[in-house]
């Protein structure tokens, strides 16, 4: 369970690097090949996936699913901090509904 929790936080951090790396990409191939932000983003994604595989092979999915979805909340905070994206009512409503839905889903999966 701790593995999955750590994995979801790491995964949301990975998304930050993917986003900042995505803006460095241009027509020249070196902008992808030597893009350390993209590499770090993919790397952290891979690390979080390994943790998921480890965590999910032992734990119960109904408990683990809601933990994974915490990464959506983390992303709202990271996006505000690093990309100055406003935390709007639309985003809070959307992510709130998604979290609630995932909790219902996991209750139904017991």
């Amino acid at each position, binding site marked *: 369970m701790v593995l999955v929790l750590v994995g979801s936080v790491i995964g*949301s951090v990975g*998304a*930050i690097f*993917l*986003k900042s*790396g*995505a*803006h460095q*990409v241009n027509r020249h191939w070196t902008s992808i090949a030597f893009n350390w932000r*993209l590499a770090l*983003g*993919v790397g952290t*994604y891979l690390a979080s*996936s*390994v943790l*998921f*595989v*480890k965590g*999910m*092979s*032992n734990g119960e999915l109904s408990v683990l*699913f809601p933990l994974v*979805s915490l*990464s*959506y909340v983390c*992303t*709202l905070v*990271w*996006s*505000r901090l*690093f*990309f*100055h*994206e*406003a*935390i*709007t*009512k*639309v*985003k809070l*409503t*959307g*992510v*709130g*509904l*998604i*979290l*609630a*839905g*995932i*909790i*219902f*889903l*996991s*209750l*139904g*999966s017991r």
Partner: protein
Amino acid sequence: MLTPATPAPGVHVPDPAKRKLAIFIVLACTLLVAVGQYLIKLGANRLSHAGLVATMIGIFTIPQLFAGYCLYGVFTVLFVYALRHGELSILYPLIALGYVWVTITAVVAFHETMNPFKIVGLLVIISGVAVLGIGGGAGAE
């Protein structure tokens, strides 16, 4: 935290058509991820007592795990493209639509039972994704 934020220096503000395209790409990507997740879960069952190194080797030697991660690779490329044209805080939560595909697959293909909790959960997730997708596409505050 609720105050309107100005765009960061160096981060360009995308045009509305591309913002909508980005949202569409991510929504389509969730189908890929759903298939990938299913394959990874299949493969993970064969690794229940493996260590970290064995898990890494398993990603390349267990066909289901390998195929699952390849789909994740395709997803990552498309996701990075989408991120150029949209806000991370809109696009990232859209990935939750994958839960809907996974649940439908489980019920249709593997005869898992559907129950009221699951139905409510699916509808609430879909409405959350719709709020983000429509609101984000319109650029609404």
